[in-house]
C-alpha cells in the first residue's frame, strides 16, 4: 500500500503520457500499413501543431484555436503527403523514406527560423490544465482525461476501419494497390485520408502533451515521435491495437523507472526495447509474419 501510494503519481503520469504516445503512434502505424513507409516527419507534424497553438493563441481565444490547430495540422499532413510522397509513388521505398527524413528536417528548420530557436510557452488550456487531486495525488486534469479520451478515439477509429466503406477500402489498399484500383478505389484519396487521420490524432495528442510539457521547441517532436515509433514497432507496425498497447506500456514503464529514481535511464529503456524487439520478434506483438508484398 505504501509502495502504491508512493508510486501512484508516476503510474498515473505513465498512463497519461502513454496515451499521448498512442495518439502519435497510430499515425505511424497507419501510414506504414498502407504505404510501407515510416513517416519520419510525423513527430514534426506533432511539433507544428504545438507551434500553431502557441502563435494562434496570441491573437485568438483558446476555443477558436483548438479547431484551428486541428484543421491546420491536418492540412500540413495532407500537403506533406501530396508534395513529398505522392510524386514518389512508384519509386523504390528507400527514396520515399529519404524524402520523409527531408521533410522532417525541413519542418524543424522552418520552426527554428520562425521561433528563433527559443522555447515558446504553450498556452494554458482552461479546464484540462486545472490542478486536481485524485487518490491523494495532485495532478493536472489532463492526466486523468487522457486515457479515456484515447480509448474513445481508438474505438472510433476501429469502428471507422472495420465498418465503413472508406475503412474497407483502406484495408483493401493496404494489401493490394492494383486490385484495389480495379475495384474503382481512388488510391490517392485513400492515402490522403490516412494522413488526415494520423495528423488529426497528432493534433489531439499535442493538446494533451503540451498541457504537461509546456515548452515548444523546434525539435520537441523528435522524442515523443521516436517513442511513438518504438511503440508502433513493439506492437507490430501496421497494427493499431499493437501501437496503442505498445505506447501505454512504454509510457508506464518509463515513468515507473523515473519513480524508482533512475530518471537518466528512462529513455534508454525505450530504445533498448526497440533493439530487443528487433532482434527477438521483428514483427512485434501483432505484426504479420509475411512482411513483403509479392
Amino acid at each position, binding site marked *: 500500500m505504501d509502495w502504491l501510494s508512493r508510486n501512484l503519481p508516476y503510474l498515473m503520469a505513465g498512463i497519461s503520457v502513454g496515451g499521448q504516445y498512442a495518439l502519435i503512434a497510430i499515425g505511424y502505424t497507419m501510414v506504414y500499413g498502407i504505404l510501407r513507409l515510416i513517416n519520419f516527419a510525423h513527430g514534426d507534424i506533432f511539433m507544428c501543431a504545438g507551434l500553431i497553438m502557441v502563435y494562434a493563441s496570441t491573437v485568438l481565444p483558446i476555443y477558436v484555436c483548438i479547431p484551428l490547430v486541428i484543421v491546420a495540422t491536418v492540412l500540413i499532413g495532407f500537403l506533406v503527403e501530396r508534395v513529398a510522397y505522392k510524386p514518389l509513388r512508384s519509386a523504390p521505398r528507400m527514396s520515399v523514406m529519404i524524402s520523409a527524413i527531408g521533410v522532417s528536417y525541413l519542418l524543424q528548420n522552418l520552426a527554428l527560423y520562425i521561433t528563433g530557436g527559443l522555447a515558446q510557452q504553450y498556452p494554458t488550456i482552461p479546464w484540462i490544465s486545472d490542478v486536481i487531486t485524485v487518490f491523494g495525488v495532485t495532478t493536472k486534469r489532463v492526466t486523468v482525461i487522457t486515457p479515456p479520451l484515447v480509448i474513445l478515439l481508438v474505438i472510433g477509429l476501429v469502428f471507422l476501419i472495420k465498418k465503413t466503406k472508406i475503412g*474497407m477500402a483502406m484495408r483493401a489498399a493496404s494489401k493490394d494497390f492494383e*486490385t484495389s*484500383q*480495379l*475495384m*474503382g478505389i481512388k488510391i490517392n484519396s485513400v492515402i490522403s485520408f490516412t494522413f488526415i487521420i494520423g495528423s488529426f490524432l497528432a493534433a489531439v495528442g499535442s493538446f494533451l502533451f503540451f498541457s504537461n510539457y509546456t515548452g515548444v521547441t523546434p525539435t520537441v517532436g523528435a522524442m515523443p515521435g521516436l517513442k511513438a515509433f518504438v511503440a508502433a514497432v513493439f506492437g507490430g507496425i501496421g497494427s493499431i491495437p499493437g501501437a496503442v498497447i505498445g505506447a501505454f506500456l512504454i509510457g508506464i514503464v518509463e515513468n515507473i523507472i523515473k519513480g524508482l529514481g533512475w530518471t537518466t535511464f528512462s529513455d534508454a529503456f525505450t530504445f533498448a526495447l526497440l533493439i530487443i524487439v528487433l532482434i527477438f520478434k521483428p514483427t512485434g506483438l501483432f505484426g504479420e509474419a509475411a512482411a513483403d508484398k509479392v
Partner: protein
Amino acid sequence: MSKLLTIKDLSVAYGGIQAVRGISFDVSEGEVVTLIGANGAGKSSTLRSIVGLVKPSGGSVLFQDKELSGLTTENIVKNGITLVPEGRRVFVNLTVYENLKMGAYMRKDNLEADLNWVYDLFPRLKERNWQSAGTLSGGEQQMLAIARALMSRPKLIMMDEPSLGLAPLVVQGVFDIIREINKQGVTILLVEQNANMALKAADRAYVMETGQITMSGSGQDLLENEEIREAYLGKKAKK
C-alpha cells in the same frame, strides 16, 4: 452483333522491351473471346493495358465507341470493364462478404439482388460469407475473384488465367461458370494458357506470339488447326 471493345494497334513497352507490338482485335457483345499463347506472349500485358494498370505506348482502346487509353484505372472500370487479375488477388484480410462489397465499391444502389445472384452462382461463397478470404482454397478464391468482379455489374469481364494452379476438376468448374455467366449476358475476354479448355469455351479466339497476333478464328476452327494442336494442345495431328 455490335462491337463492345475494339483494340487498334495497341502496343505496350516496359523500358526498351516491347511486350505487345501493335495488336488489333475486337470483342462483340455477348461473346466469349479468348487470347491464347505461351508464357511471355504479351497476353497479360494486353489486359493490363486495357484497364490502365500499365499505360499503353501506342494504339487505341475503344469501349462502346469511347476512347479509354490514357484514362486512370478507376475511370476505366467505371465504364463497365473489369479484370479478374492473374493469381486471383482476393483481399485475404477481408471476409468473403467484404470482398464482394469491394467489387461493388463504385455502386451506390442496393446490392441485395446481385449478392443473391452471385451466391446462387457460387453457393460455396455463401457458406463462407463471414470467413476471411485468406482461409479459402485456391479454387474458392478463384470463384470469389470472379464473383467480386461480377458485383460491379460489368458489361465486359476480362479474366487473366483463371485456371492457373487449380486442380483439373476445379478448372472444369471454373469454365462451367464462365459459360454460365456468359449465358446470362456478360461478355467475356479470356486469357489462358490452357488452350484446350479456352478454345472449347470460346466463340472466337486469337493466338498471340511474342507480342503479336498470329492467328485468329472461331474456337472450333482453332481446336482443329494442326499448328495449334502441335504448339498448344500437345497432340500430334492425326495422319
